[in-house]
């Protein structure tokens, strides 16, 4: 019994030692730290090795300065924005952060990175280099979103939005946005993975700064790290159909001179790739489940079964035509953003070197079969 008591005493003493290991030795006040939430990368025209970085941190002091009633805030609104940007020319992300540190009194850290903005004019070499640096750094959050812009990354991160632009961009997807389809988000690690993966190419949403917001402007397509083309916002919808990524979006379907509206609840996709003598044949079977939002008859009478079937046919034809068009656009730049090549590699691992060297070409010249099956499951309540 005394032995057991002694053992408890030792355990209690050992546990008391933990009080000394509170881990507060390198304690930093939260006010002394500053998260970098956005990184923008632009090319520098004359210096090929240099990149222009825009580093964004939230400006937390602005809230106290502007608080009404206290009378401390002299200026009302005006120039105040909820973020600070640092503009640095450097050869790497890390050296840019180090240089920016000389301009600010709070220590930067990158664990809460939200958005990375790439200018589309970045060369393949620069983009490879920056992506590698971002992936290599252990402290950077790999779940940040990657976006591309045709203006400059600086202008996007300078947009006059209510929240910092980096946060605004991340919020478009982070909160499981219901309208999944008008944009094709890609996280930093997915961008890196798709660029490195054999038989699948990365993409990034295109954004543009407007007067007081940030607007989606389609999708930038890459071949490896090389920007090769882009899709319009409307085409992005059909790209998402091809990839089976559409969730809960409403689209209007033109039918001769009239239109009706459906709400696509969910799209699934079944991909197949069949090698033949004349090259690859790529099958993309799209299945769509939709609700009817509005009809052509303006709800004057209940829908018959036959009409619903006709609507289904119209949706199928419309989606088919447009998906084929977008597929051809992907083929024209050889950017396999859906990942047919990777699937083919998984099913034929013995052809790895052939696929690695020649997939872009094979994909560009493949024959395609797109089929769409639509089922309208609900016609609504009123009629």
């Amino acid at each position: 019994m005394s032995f057991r008591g002694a053992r408890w005493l030792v355990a209690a003493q050992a546990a008391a030692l933990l009080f000394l290991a509170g881990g507060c030795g390198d304690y930093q006040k939260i006010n002394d730290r500053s998260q970098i939430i956005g990184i923008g990368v632009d090319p520098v025209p004359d210096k090929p090795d240099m990149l222009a970085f825009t580093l964004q941190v939230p400006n937390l002091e602005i809230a106290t300065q502007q608080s009404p009633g206290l009378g401390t805030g002299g200026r009302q609104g005006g120039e105040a924005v909820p973020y600070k940007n640092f503009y640095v020319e450097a050869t790497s992300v890390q050296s840019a952060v180090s240089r920016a540190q000389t301009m600010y009194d709070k220590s930067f850290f990158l664990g809460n990175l939200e958005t990375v903005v790439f200018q589309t004019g970045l060369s393949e070499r620069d983009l490879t280099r920056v992506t590698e640096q971002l992936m290599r750094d252990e402290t950077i959050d790999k779940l940040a979103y990657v976006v591309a812009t045709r203006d400059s990354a600086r202008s996007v991160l300078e947009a006059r939005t209510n929240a910092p632009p980096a946060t605004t961009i991340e919020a478009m997807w982070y909160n499981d946005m219901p309208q999944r389809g008008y944009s094709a988000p890609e996280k930093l690690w997915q961008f890196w993975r798709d660029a490195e993966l054999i038989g699948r190419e990365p993409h990034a949403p295109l954004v543009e700064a407007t007067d007081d917001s940030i607007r989606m402007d389609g999708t930038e397509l890459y071949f490896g790290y090389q920007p090769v083309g882009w899709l319009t916002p409307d085409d992005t919808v059909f790209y998402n159909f091809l990839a089976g990524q559409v969730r809960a979006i409403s689209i209007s379907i033109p039918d001769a001179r009239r239109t009706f509206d459906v709400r696509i609840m969910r799209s699934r996709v079944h991909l197949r790739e069949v090698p033949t003598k004349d090259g690859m044949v790529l099958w993309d079977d799209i299945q769509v489940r939709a609700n009817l939002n509005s009809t052509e008859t303006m709800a004057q009478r209940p829908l018959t079964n036959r009409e619903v079937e006709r609507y289904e046919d119209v949706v199928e034809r419309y989606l088919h035509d447009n998906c084929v068009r977008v597929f051809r656009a992907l083929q024209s730049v050889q950017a396999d953003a859906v990942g047919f090549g990777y699937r083919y590699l998984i099913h034929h691992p013995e052809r790895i070197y052939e696929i690695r060297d020649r997939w872009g070409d094979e994909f560009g010249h493949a024959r395609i079969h797109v089929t769409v099956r639509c089922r309208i499951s609900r016609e609504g309540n009123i009629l």
Partner: protein
Amino acid sequence: MNAQNERLYNLSAFQAIALFSSSFLPVMFWIYPTVAVHYARLDAQWALLVTVLIGVVISWVHGRLNDRFPNMTGPDFACLVWGKWIGKAITALYVPVYLLFLGVSLYFTISLMKYFFPLTMRMWLALAMTVVAWRGAWCGVEAMGRASAIVHPLTFAGILASFGAILANADQPLIPLSFTSPSQTASGVYHLLPLYLGMDLILIVNPYYRHRRGKSEWYPVIATAIGGVVVMLVFFSIVVNLGFTPTERLAYPVQAVIQLIRLRGFLVERLGIVIIILSVAYTALFLGNHIWALSTTIARIVGVSDHKFRPFTLFVAPSIFAISQIIATTMHARDIVTMILAPASWVVVVIIPVSTHLIASIRGLRTDTREELQAQGRQRPPKRRRIRSSP
């Protein structure tokens, strides 16, 4: 040998399985998907599967060997089978291999801890782990068995839950089902066997668990199968998320992939830190097991009773610490694994135990005539019977 009877049933079946199961994996756990994809390309999962099967078969051989000589440690029956001096020489071969193996394992673990403690020197991290492990080893195998029975199920559950979640998160779960190249697969298997280096601990624990015909030979097999489940699950959750070619580019794929999931509303937002905590506990346990095992082996080589292992821990633990400090870079550690530990593990895990077993069966050597190994044994006291029925 005089203490034989009192030490016989120190480990329950569950403790024995947990102890065996926590005595391998760490040396390659953080890097093996990269190694598998590097050598076996798209046959990596076949190479892993073959490695796991080899591990299971070899662990069964270890179990058989133990049941053949139930009352003596590994070095003793090596001397019995091979003759005194060859047996001692063979056993002595284990010592440098295992010292290097433990040093490299410690190096990989502190490299990962360094990421969470960027301001702490490697030396202090390694020292802390070595001291904890050494203290555990000092208490002997019974204490390590009890600790294993707690830590190992926790680690196993943690890995199943987190990597299961990562696997379910994948956006295109594609795994190749066709088989390409036997030579690539063989190369992969050759380089992946260090996953099961550490299994020889089973031989030294031999007299400390209860041997029963038809049952105790399966303890190592169950332990290895648990390891195999972990190996396959972690590998699949990595390749379905990252794909095969990018996995090859990563130095620490396991660590990279656990950063990629963020469970909202979960107790901890990043699972990574949980896995690191579990892996630190696991590695400390693993080091403790092996410090005990290696000290006991050295004790038997120099002819001291296996209860007098404690002075030898004072050589083993500092050596492990020193080796972990000498290794400079990850590539250096990986080179040690591929150049030295891969061939060495074929020798110490596969060739030596299998040939020991073969020679023992050819020469008809066995010491398993004790009552509990006989199918129809004599009347046993009821107390033992109750122990038997525990899991």
